[in-house]
């Protein structure tokens, strides 16, 4: 089981938090902070697993994380998950984000956290891995996007078109450029 998925940046600002068990908002923030402290201390070229009973229950749990450019992707999992499998899942997630956002960067995650949630929902459900095939994930995400658009078009036909201004993208660090590194064979 995956207990939580956290994405935060190099300064510990949360970009996405998904807890598969209920915690109060305060505890959630505390977990994010604590996880950030644990993860940010670590050098780049040391292993991506962290043990230790965090606030999220029990010593059975592990933190498995990856660091891409400005973002940390952290999965908190229990012993039923394969460590290397989760590392690959993180890779799949980042690559999917990269495809869906066309060259993803931190700003995409900042301004479209809902969309990231929707993508994640196609991969992990209730703490269990739902789909690992990237093309399948993208198909479903795009199909839902289309549905949304068609609803929006129906709606917009009643009023003036909305301009979807994309926030300025100057000086952004592409995750894909240096971030996407394939360490392992995809299972």
């Amino acid at each position, binding site marked *: 089981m995956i207990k939580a998925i956290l994405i935060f940046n190099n300064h510990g600002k949360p970009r996405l938090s998904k807890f598969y068990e209920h915690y109060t908002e305060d505890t959630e923030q505390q977990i994010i902070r604590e996880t950030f402290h644990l993860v940010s201390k670590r050098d780049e070229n040391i292993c991506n697993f*962290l043990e230790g009973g965090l606030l999220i229950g029990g010593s059975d749990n592990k933190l498995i994380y990856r660091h891409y450019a400005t973002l940390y992707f952290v999965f908190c999992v229990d012993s039923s998950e*394969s460590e290397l499998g989760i590392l690959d899942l993180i890779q799949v997630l980042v690559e999917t984000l990269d495809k869906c956002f066309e060259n993803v960067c931190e700003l995409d995650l900042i301004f479209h956290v809902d969309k990231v949630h929707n993508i994640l929902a196609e991969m992990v459900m209730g703490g*269990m891995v739902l789909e690992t095939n990237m093309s399948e994930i993208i198909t479903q995400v795009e199909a839902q996007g289309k*549905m949304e658009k068609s609803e929006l078009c129906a709606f917009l036909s009643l009023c003036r078109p909305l301009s979807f201004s994309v926030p300025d993208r100057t000086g952004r660090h592409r995750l894909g450029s240096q971030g996407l590194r394939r360490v392992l*064979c995809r299972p």
Partner: protein
Amino acid sequence: MALKIVKGSIDRMFDKNLQDLVRGIRNHKEDEAKYISTCIDEIKQELKQDNIAVKANAVCKLTYLQMLGYDVSWAAFNIVEVMSSSKFTYKRIGYLAASQCFHEGTDVIMLTTNQIRKDLSSPHQYDTGVALTGLSCFVTPDLARDLANDIMTLMSHTKPYIRKKAVLIMYKVFLKYPESLRPAFPRLKEKLEDPDPGVQSAAVNVICELARRNPKNYLSLAPLFFKLMTSSTNNWVLIKIIKLFGALTPLEPRLGKKLIEPLTNLIHSTSAMSLLYECVNTVIAVLISLSSGMPNHSASIQLCVQKLRILIEDSDQNLKYLGLLAMSKILKTHPKSVQSHKDLILQCLDDKDESIRLRALDLLYGMVSKKNLMEIVKKLMLHVDKAEGTTYRDELLTKIIDICSQSNYQYITNFEWYISILVELTRLEGTRHGHLIASQMLDVAIRVKAIRGFAVAQMATLLDNAHLLTGNTQRNGICEVLYAAAWICGEFSEHLEDPMQTLEAMLRPKVATLPGHIQAVYVQNAAKLFATVLRKHEGETDSHAAQETSQLLIDRLPLFVQSANLEVQERASCILQLVKYIQKLQQKKVEVAEEVTALFAGELNPVAPKAQKKVPVPEGLDLDAWINKPPSESESEDEKPKAVFAKEEPKHSRSRHTEVDEKELARRREARKREQANNPFYIKASPSSQKVYDAPGVEHIPVVQIDLSVPLKVPGMPMSDQYLKLEEERRQKEKAERKKEKKKKREKRGKERKADSGPESEEDIAPAHQVDIVTEEMPENALPSDDDDKDPNDPHKALDIDLDKPLADSEKLPVRTHRPEVLKSPAEDRVNESIPQETKKRSGKEKKEKKKGKEKDRKRSKEEKKKKKHKEVEEELLESHPEEAVQSEETKEAATPPTSTSAEASELDFWLCSAPVPPAAQEETAPSSAAAVDTSSAAAPESEPDEPKDAEPEDTKSSKHKKKKQKKEKEEKEKKKKKRHHHHHHHSNAGGEDSVQNGTVEEEEPLPPMSNYFLLAENSYIKMMKEDADQVYDIQGNHQDESKVVVSVIFENKSDSFLKSMEFNVLDSLNSKLQRPEGAGAHDSLTVPFQLPPGISNEAHFVFSVQSIVMPQKLKGTLTFIVKSDESSTHEKLDFKLHFTCTSYLITTPCYL
């Protein structure tokens, strides 16, 4: 209307959307909180509007704010509103918000049930998908119960997208509503073979998650998973399955044997590291579960260790970490094969990555030997000095102590060295583990008698230099050590060279800054030291020294009398008065030393931590007996508010009472024992615990003698490093000596020598000290290991459900119904109705039966003796087959049909047996199969293979294995025969109550005791009961040819409605067929020749033809009928299973249902 919408949407243009909110927050870095609070006010306004688009936008923003840590539960109702929007866009926003902030305590959740149900059955797959995703995050027990059935239907949805989500969410439903597991499980199992890989993977995922918590219930799925493992190419699925097998193998060693080969193949063939790693892990689990010493498995170990070495040597830190992790698992069972990689592991200790260092430390624990302990610890001590972070250093410290103290200090050859290590460790700054070092010091000093002198000297130095430890307030973790030091110095003060000086050190004013419990120990042990000093100076003509000591105490103790700590205060004032009194005596020149020493006389022995729990109840003491007459309830209420100190009173009355009523008590005890013996629910004490317990005296304390020839060496300085050199010198010397000996003895024990290979094996290193390690006191027959209780709050405990039991009718998932269900099935009614019927029948047959009964009894007692033997064998078998064991235990309570479960179990056996049978198992089977032959000599072996499996599709086994099967069929058959016999014995052994097992009876409803019919199946309308075996129907027809079995069934109408058009149908098997009227097809049903008014029961006979009487049969059947009430009539059906066991054929009882 349209205008309103347009107006609303134009309004929306001016609202902030999520992007605006985010941008705004980023632009207000200084006053973020203030900005957000204004935003929340805006959101509150937006939520008040009618326009759903505005609301959805507001909820979307709230979701973002929730991530930032703002409580948004106040908007829960609005979220529900947005969830119920017909537009997918808004619905998704609503469900996302709900999944982020709803939980079991959210009260509006109950409003969502119908909305979710609607969405689940929506024609648009994404509506359903979104609802499932959301539900997976906030499902509550109520939602789970209400929606379980809807989700179960979705598991067979046409779209794989919905199927896989529905399958996954079932796990959450099971957790919240465990009752749904059994009804849903068959469908979940089907999904393992779903054509869509995603659905398959989801099903594997769910079952693995379930099985991980309660593996024994899923053992029967092993063949299916094995097939998946050999056929699947999806690495995610493979990893999950392989992990699952890792959890299953400890329960079934035969499974492990079967797995080794395919796993080894995978290890060789796969290129994915993750899969390789999991394979290695599971192979390790298999090897652990198998008894060691199997020659052909050393190759597997070698393969694992080899692959792990490759991982550890990899430059990728992740692989290195995992390699070490897996290595530590091998270490537990095969330390030798890991020890050869010591170099690699020591190398990892220098790794820059702390996680890797910690893993390597774990491994070191298992790698020490007498030979290398000092060397390894020296290396660790170096790391302790170098370590920067306190956590890592603390970890090192605990590891050093763990390593040294493991298995009762097995590897320590020189305790002086160990004490010096402990003393060196006290110099660590800011460690949290002072108490750990302290407890080690105490333990060693108490248990290793020979070391006390040395230990006391060291401790005295520690006490003298206490200011070094306590000087810094930050280091107070370490001052725990002083607790040990003070106690050791006091208790073993006879070893002190200068007790006076130590006494002085213990009474320094600085001591008052120590924590209370340490001060208390100081004061108490100061008194002990005082006694020693007095004794030392006794007899001396000049009593000046003794008097000086008394004066010292009298001067210093008042400081402790003023202590804020009660314990310190009490001890200090006590001892102060004592010393004052002694001083008086001293002035009168009275010799007091003897008496003062007597205060502290006697040896204190270490007591094992669990000793108290393990003390067996002495013979004759009955803890359940009432001490007083049980007080009436009103009395106890009155008594309660009485004073706290009144507790003593009942104690007095207790002793009197027991004396007076000794006889009466004995009588009652006898009665209770008898009652308990007859009560199947009472857990009887195992014979081992009934052994007579005689309290061990001091002479009974086991003392481990380590004999040795080398005398004690006391080096001047307690530096641990010196010991290393000394040790080496000593060993060299010994070696030289031994070489001489060897030459002499070589001829004598040529063979023995070969056994311990290596130039210097473990046994050769003798400890440097003559050491008695006193083991901790434990009551006899008690083992220090104790069963760890599982966490009672674990939600997975509720899912420990037997999945092989057939579904009872009551277990169906709740479905919304339009007509109220008739729920009138009180047990009493049935008793009243069935008894008169039965008595009628009985009276007719009673005479016959009496005769038969006697004969039977005689037979039975003979048989029972035989069976006892079998049972022993069976029990052994059951041990290796935990699932069955558990089930047979359960049958007593739950009255499940054992034949059905054992049929499944034997299927598993069959599958497992195609792997070579271990020699031990063969030995077991030999005698029993021989016994089986004579009873079943008439068996026609050709008809064997098609029998118990017909319930399950043959294709569960891969065709590859079919060939193997046929080859080994002969062996198997024998085995099966034996198995079956065990089952018979099982039934008949348990006698009367056991026969209930044959019907599917619900737990809550015990059968009327007089009945000779057994419940076959029932629902709220009808109850079907089977005839008991005692009533014999002759087998009609020819034994050789075709036998006929008559089954009589009683149908009882339990409802208020009229039951008609009852049709009885059974799915024929190859062996047994329901006899139908000529012209009817093989699948037609028989009409029951009567109708049932409310509350009436009637009996019908059905004839079955049986091909072979050597096979047990399990037939599935259904009864369909029409329920006719005043308003309506409905069509209902009831499923049941008929069981024909072999014994029923053999003893000319046609049917033993």
